[in-house]
């Protein structure tokens, strides 16, 4: 990762050979960022220009634009060079709007929560549910004010949350 001399820069483990190329950056929390590498250092801190997050839910995906991003190195798992000759994703995958992918994400988080709710103990369950609801609130507040479609998805999500709350009434959340 150290700055190698110009002659062996392409044989070193430096990210220099990836500069100005379109890359996929996998993060430790599972997020997938795409963008052009403009700078890096020995910790794998990286600057991505034109960054976007690729959200994948099942066979649906969406690239959500983020802009210029500085990524802290310790959160980097892998930096991959995208082969421009090849398809970025398998042909059966369908691109959808940001609003739709957020809705799908929400639905799949609900269904995985349902799974867990059946299996965890009651007290921890209550806490988990409350905190996940509040983090959902957070996400709903911070995302998707950009388009009407997104606002619609937000309404859908709120409806869903309402129905979740109804279904969880037995938990006596208040």
């Amino acid at each position, binding site marked *: *990762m*150290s700055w190698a001399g110009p002659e062996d820069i392409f044989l070193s*483990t430096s*990210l220099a050979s990836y500069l100005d190329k379109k890359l*996929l950056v996998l993060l430790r929390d599972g997020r*997938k960022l795409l963008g052009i590498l403009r700078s890096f250092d020995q910790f794998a801190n990286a600057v991505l220009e034109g960054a976007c997050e690729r959200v994948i839910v099942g066979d649906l995906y969406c690239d959500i634009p983020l802009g210029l991003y500085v990524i802290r190195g310790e959160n980097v798992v*892998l930096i991959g060079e995208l082969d421009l000759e090849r398809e970025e994703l398998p042909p059966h995958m369908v691109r959808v709007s940001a609003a739709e992918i957020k809705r799908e994400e929400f639905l799949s988080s609900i269904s995985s929560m349902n799974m867990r709710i059946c299996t965890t103990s009651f007290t921890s369950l209550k806490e988990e549910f409350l905190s996940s609801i509040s983090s959902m609130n957070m996400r709903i507040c911070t995302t998707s004010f950009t388009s009407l479609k997104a606002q619609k998805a937000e309404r859908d999500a709120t409806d869903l949350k309402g129905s979740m709350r109804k279904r969880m009434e037995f938990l006596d959340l208040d």
Partner: protein
Amino acid sequence: MLFFSYFKDLVGREVTVELKNDLAIRGTLHSVDQYLNIKLENTKVVDQDKYPHMLSVRNCFIRGSVVRYVQLPPDGVDVELLHDATRREARGG
């Protein structure tokens, strides 16, 4: 530095790097550095269906800290190689 030297001797060989997030990638070892960051070429994800976003990645840089295992070629643990590595280390290289 022992394993840094060791991996340097494996450059050009096929290895499978298994990460702490369970992603396993097979590829040719292109280079390694003192943090055991690894660069692979001609990579192929072992469970491709589970990681569709990796489809067009041919070359990659893996941060050393996220590695769980590296599966080595069966003849990769060459006594002579390890000896050479140990000797270099003894010389302070």
